[in-house]
């Protein structure tokens, strides 16, 4: 097979952060091949692709396309050289139709008039040619995420890209959509397109790739044929040590009810119902997973339970005590810990020191302040103990945290939230954007807390995470509980169907069902 793209000795050093992001990285993609690129956060994958796409200039190294050395200074150069990028966050105009988005900037008429009809025809032909059916007239914002991604791919194909970079394409998809994407990717490779597939998820690599390259700390660790490797092997290459991929846990020892939501309704920022009339319980010693595609009310549910947002109706109870109208502080004092989904803006204050981040929920304790004065010495002692207990690397008491990696930042959040012996833990997307090593840590910690008798409410869009951690699964769909499953007799397919708004009828009788009504 001919080599479509070759990167040789790509080197990039960032002065501002003092990071060697790429260190003589070699990487190549053959024609008609799917070549996965994996690595932890900060391993240098994104930098490498941004250099290839002309968004960043490399200090050294060369790019060779179809045997010829090319210079790529911007995204236009990249497109001219047949490189197309499908970004993780789609770059579509939500109010435009599919055809308008695909033809944006390359409209067929050279005169100033745009012919909707000929655009639609072009898009229809394109979709037929690649067997990626879309409705050219549909408005993008009305489409499901998977369909929007398809529009992105068509956009790139219409610009005659032969080498496609897919940057974490599965992060936002439901399991079914992931399955469809995999088929699309395989099909494109059959049509002799070359695909760079960037991901965190090793299982996908095995499903879709021909070869896989692993990066760590800016260096290329190795490239393997998919037939010569497996998940533990790849995880080891990524992290540099053995990694426990599936948390081992004993069956839950259910205790008393710790948390209860009764008939809770919440509206979103626009005043529309985000959660309508849901009720559930979390018992001591169990992890209850809330599964669901992002945007089905998870954010609002968590904000209401943690006290950051007020609810429209219903009751919340902690250990039998009504906390429906309690302040955040009162809830925290009654044993609620909260790992928020947005650690950068909500979970942490990146502008201040590690110490001040760690005391946000307990600076009122007599241990940390007396007569309104902060007790600096015992605060740094506490900081030191959290650093040690949660092995937060590259952090020192009294220093800033803005330069720490995502994994270490999450360790700070987890460390703070779990060091107060909480009885109820809300963990919202606790491993989002983390690498395998950090995921392992977070999962292990949550199970330890469960075994110590805490009740855990795990909210995650990662089906894998829900399946491996939860003892019980609630599926959230359009603000309602679409179904409840015991993990022991649930399959990924069942959960996936519920997540997409479907119903399952052949399962356990206690499964509570509700129709997928529109809110």
């Amino acid at each position, binding site marked *: 097979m001919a080599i479509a793209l070759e990167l040789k000795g790509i080197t990039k*050093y960032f*002065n*501002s952060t003092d990071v060697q992001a790429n260190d003589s990285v070699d990487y190549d993609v053959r024609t008609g091949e799917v070549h996965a690129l994996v690595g932890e956060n900060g391993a240098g994958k994104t930098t490498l692709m941004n250099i290839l796409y002309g968004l960043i200039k490399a200090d050294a190294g060369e790019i060779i396309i179809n045997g010829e050395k090319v210079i790529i200074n911007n995204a236009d150069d990249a497109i001219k050289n047949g490189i197309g990028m499908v970004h993780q966050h789609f770059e579509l105009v939500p109010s435009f139709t599919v055809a308008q988005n695909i033809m944006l900037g390359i409209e067929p008429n050279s005169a100033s008039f745009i012919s909707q009809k000929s655009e639609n025809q072009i898009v229809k032909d394109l979709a037929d040619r690649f067997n990626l059916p879309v409705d050219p007239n549909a408005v993008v914002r009305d489409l499901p995420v998977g369909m929007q991604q398809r529009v992105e791919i068509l956009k790139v194909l219409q610009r005659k890209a032969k080498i496609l970079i897919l940057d974490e394409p599965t992060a936002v998809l439901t399991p079914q959509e992931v399955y469809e994407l995999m088929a699309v990717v395989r099909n494109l490779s059959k049509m002799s397109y070359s695909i760079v597939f960037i991901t965190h998820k090793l299982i996908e690599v095995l499903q879709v790739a021909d070869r896989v390259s692993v990066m760590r700390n800016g260096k290329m660790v190795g490239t393997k044929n998919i037939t010569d490797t497996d998940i533990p092997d790849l995880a080891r290459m990524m992290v540099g040590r053995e990694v426990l991929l599936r948390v081992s846990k004993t069956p839950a020892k259910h205790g008393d009810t710790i948390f209860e939501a009764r008939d809770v309704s919440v509206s979103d920022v626009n005043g529309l119902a985000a959660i309508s009339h849901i009720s559930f319980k979390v018992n001591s010693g169990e992890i209850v997973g809330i599964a669901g595609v992002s945007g089905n009310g998870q954010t609002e549910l968590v904000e209401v339970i*943690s*006290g*950051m947002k007020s609810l429209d109706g219903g009751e919340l109870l902690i250990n039998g005590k009504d906390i429906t109208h309690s*302040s*955040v*502080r009162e*809830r*925290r004092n009654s044993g609620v810990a*909260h790992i*928020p989904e*947005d650690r950068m*803006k*909500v*979970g*942490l*204050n*990146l*502008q*201040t020191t590690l110490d*001040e981040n760690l*005391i*946000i*929920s307990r*600076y*009122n304790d007599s241990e940390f*302040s007396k007569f*309104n*004065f*902060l007790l*600096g010495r015992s605060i740094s002692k506490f900081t030191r103990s959290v650093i040690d207990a949660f092995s937060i690397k590259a952090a*020192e008491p009294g*220093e800033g945290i803005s330069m720490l990696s995502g994994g270490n930042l999450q360790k700070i959040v987890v460390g703070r939230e779990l060091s107060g012996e909480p009885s109820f833990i809300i963990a919202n997307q606790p491993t989002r954007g983390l690498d395998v090593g950090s995921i392992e840590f977070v999962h292990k910690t949550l199970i330890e807390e469960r075994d110590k008798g805490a009740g855990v409410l795990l909210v995650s869009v990662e089906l894998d995470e829900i399946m491996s951690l939860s003892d019980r699964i609630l599926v959230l769909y359009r603000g309602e509980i679409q179904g409840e499953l015991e993990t022991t007799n649930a399959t990924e397919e069942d959960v996936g169907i519920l997540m997409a708004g479907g119903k399952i009828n052949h399962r356990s009788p206690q499964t509570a069902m509700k129709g997928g009504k529109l809110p």
Partner: protein
Amino acid sequence: MKNKRFKKLLDAILVPALAIISGLILMAVLIAVTKKPIFASYGVLFSKGFGCVKSGNCAILTTLERATPIILTGLAAVVAFRSGLFSIGQEGQFLVASVVAAWLGYSIHLPNGVHQIVIILACMAAGAAYGYIPGILKVKLGVNELLATIILNTIATLFIEYMVQFPLRADKATTAHSPLIDKSAELATFMPGSKWGVGFIIAVAAVILVFIFLWKTKMGYEQRMAGQAKRFALYGGVASDKAAIRAMLISGALAGLAGAIEVLGVHRRIMTGFSVGLGFDGLTSAILGQTHPFGVLIVAIIFAGLKLGAQLGLQLKLGIPRELGGTIIGFIILFIAARKFYEGNITAIAGWFKRKPNQKMKREGG
């Protein structure tokens, strides 16, 4: 660790220092236009702003006196900014408090020592009350504090002018001013020839207290968290609304303190044209001083010195208009505003130094 602290300090000082130097260099161009000797101008500017010819005739003491209200209004701005409120109401709070000081200075009679304390407390309360208005508007109705304080500044400027012209006017014949305050209400000065006195000591104490408040107390912690990361504060259980109100009360009280000292220690009355923008100078020194109390202290003194030097030195000695002093300060602010330019270049230069040995190594190696 020590190295990092040094780097942090350097980062804090570098941009303002470069801005001040750039402003002073640009001054040479303006002086050249007026065809006056450039180097002599610098000499005069500094000796008349910061120098000390002989004991008892020290320009620096007058500079410190003039810096006092700027320090305090600067601190007022620091407290508001650190709490996430872009309040520019220091001028208005300062003026309202000045009216209170001038009025209580002659209308009530108390023994020396008590009189000043009563007036100072009343002025701080007046400033705080005037700061409370934009605070409560922000918290309850979501009114932008910047707009509210702009309007309140205008109201205060007109209010003091009205008070001087009518209710507090001492003498119908001369220009409008209020009666002199009682001797018992005056703040002591240290040296004959300048009004440098107790007021400055109070201001320095306030610098230290504000520093302790913001960085060593629970309340200060709440203020800063609510200011830096609103969502984080909410998440952690900090009552942001309370913090906002508290910020405006403290900020107003500090600006009010400045008004008390300016009346009791310097003018001993209010007169028409009392408002010369000391509150705005404080605002600027807060921004230039990296919204840090110690930064404010330094910048306020530099400001006062440059203005004094321009007035007494450039204007009286060399015949260069004293507005040049204001122009230099204007330049300095402009250079601070263009800080991205410095920061970009500082990083580039630092990177150049850092990489050089590397490349050399490679060349030797290859």
